[in-house]
C-alpha cells in the first residue's frame, strides 16, 4: 500500500515538473468603477523571463506601456524569446467592470503567464501579473491583480495631449467622465523610481483648477483592480 501511494506522488511530481504545451482560456475583468485599461497583453513565456518586477526599474518597453499604453516594445521582446502572446484581446480599451477573453496555445517550456495593461487616467499606473506559474492540472483558476506604478513618471495627474510618449509628463487621456482642467499638478517628482504598488490617484473636487485634473469621487480605486480567470484545458 505504501509503495503504491509513493508511486502516485512521484507520478504527480513528474507531471507538474514537465512544462509541456497547454491550451488556456484567459479572462480579464476590470473590477474598478471608473478606470479604463489600455490594450491588454497576455503572454506565456519561460520561467527565466519577466515583463516587470517590483523593486526593480522598469525597462524602456514597460515604460512605454505604462505611460502611453504602447505594447510594441514588449511584443518585440516577447517575439524574440518565442513567447506565446495575445495582444489587445479587447480590441481597444477595457471599460470599468467589462471583461475580455484571450485564447492561448502555449509551447513547451512557456509555463509562466504574465499580463499587463496601462490604467487610464494615471501617469504610469498599470495592472500586472508577473510570471504566474500555469498549473499543469486542468481546471479553472482565479487570480486578482493589483495596481502598480512603473516609477518612471511623476504622478502630476494633469491630462495633457500627447503625453503618452515616454518621458512626456502627463496623462494622455481620461476616457469616461470628462477630466477637470487647469490643475496645478499634484507633484513634479517621482522619488521612487522602482516599480511599486500604486499609491492611488488623489484627484480633487474642482472642475477647473485645483491640484489635479482627476476627480476624487471618480478616479480612485482600491486593490485589487482586475480579476484573471484562467481555464487550463
Amino acid at each position, binding site marked *: *500500500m505504501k509503495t*503504491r*501511494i509513493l508511486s*502516485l*506522488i512521484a507520478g*504527480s511530481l513528474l507531471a507538474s515538473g514537465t512544462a509541456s504545451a497547454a491550451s488556456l482560456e484567459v479572462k480579464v*475583468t476590470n*473590477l*474598478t*468603477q*471608473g478606470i479604463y485599461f489600455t490594450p491588454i497583453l497576455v503572454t506565456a513565456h519561460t520561467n527565466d523571463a519577466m515583463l516587470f518586477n517590483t523593486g526593480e526599474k522598469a525597462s524602456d518597453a514597460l515604460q512605454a506601456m505604462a505611460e502611453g499604453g504602447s505594447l510594441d516594445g514588449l511584443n518585440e521582446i516577447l517575439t524574440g524569446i518565442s513567447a506565446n502572446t495575445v495582444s489587445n484581446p479587447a480590441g481597444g480599451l477595457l471599460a*470599468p*467592470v*467589462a*471583461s475580455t477573453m484571450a485564447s492561448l496555445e502555449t509551447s513547451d517550456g512557456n509555463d509562466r503567464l504574465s499580463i499587463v495593461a496601462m490604467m487610464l487616467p494615471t501617469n504610469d499606473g498599470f495592472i500586472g501579473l508577473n510570471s504566474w506559474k500555469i498549473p499543469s*492540472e486542468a481546471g479553472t483558476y482565479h487570480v486578482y491583480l493589483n495596481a502598480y506604478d512603473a516609477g518612471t513618471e511623476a504622478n502630476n495627474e494633469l491630462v495633457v495631449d500627447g503625453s503618452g510618449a515616454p518621458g512626456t509628463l502627463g496623462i494622455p487621456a481620461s476616457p469616461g467622465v470628462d477630466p477637470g482642467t487647469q490643475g496645478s499638478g499634484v507633484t513634479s517628482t517621482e522619488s521612487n523610481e522602482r516599480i511599486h504598488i500604486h499609491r492611488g490617484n*488623489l*484627484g*480633487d*473636487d474642482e472642475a477647473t483648477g485645483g491640484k489635479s485634473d482627476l476627480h*476624487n*469621487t*471618480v*478616479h*480612485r*480605486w*482600491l*486593490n*485589487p*483592480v482586475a480579476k484573471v480567470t484562467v481555464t487550463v484545458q
Partner: protein
Amino acid sequence: MKLSKLIIPLTCLTLVACGDDDDPPMTVDPTPTPTEAMIKITATNLTYAQPLSPIGVALHKEGQFWQLGESASDALEVLAEGGDNSELLGLDVVQTKASTDAPLAPGAKAELMLSQETLTDQKLSVITMMVNTNDGFTGLNALDVSSMAVGEEMRFVTYAYDAGTEANTEASGTIPGPADGGEGFNAQRETINKVAMHPGVVGQDDGLSSSVLSSDHKFDNPLMAITITRMK
C-alpha cells in the same frame, strides 16, 4: 482527478483498520432519515469606523446576490443604500436565512447559525452595507459549502463593492450611517448602474469639501473576516 486517486488508497487503509474491530457489522437503513446540517458563520468588522448594517446570511441553491458589471437588483439596492437586508433574504431562492438584530460595530464580532436538512448543492451568501457610505456593501456571494465535512472550517476575507445605484457624493443627507443620519434607500439610480468594486470614500480631510465624512470613515480591503464552521 489526482486528489481522488490519492484518497482511494487512504480509504482502503481505513477500511482495513476497521476490520480489526470486534463490533458487529453495521446494519444499513435503506431509507436513512435526513440528517440536519448546521453551519456557524462568524463575522468580524475589520474597519476603523464603518459600522456594518445587520449581517444577513442565507443558504440557497441558485442565484447570486450580485454580479460584477451587471445592474444591482432592487433588493440589493435596498441593502446597499439603506442597510436593510430583508428583501435579499426574502428572495424566493433563499432556503434558510438569519440576520443579526443590530449593526456590527467596528472591531466587533457576530455569530450566526444556519440549519438545513442537508448541504447538498447549497451555497452561502453573506451580505451587509458599510453604513457610512452612499451605496457600499460587502459580503460573500454564493460560496459553495456543499462539500463541507462536519467540523470543517473555512476562512475568508471580504472586499468592498459599490452597487452603482447612488452617486458617491458623500453629501449631507445622503448617508444613512451615524456620520450623517441621512437618507437610505431611494429608487432613483445613478448613471453608472453597474456593480463594481468600491473606490473607497474620499472625505472632507482628503479633498472632498462637500463630504460629511472624515478620514475616520476611510477603509481599505479587506472589510470583514469570516469563518464558516460546519457544526453538524
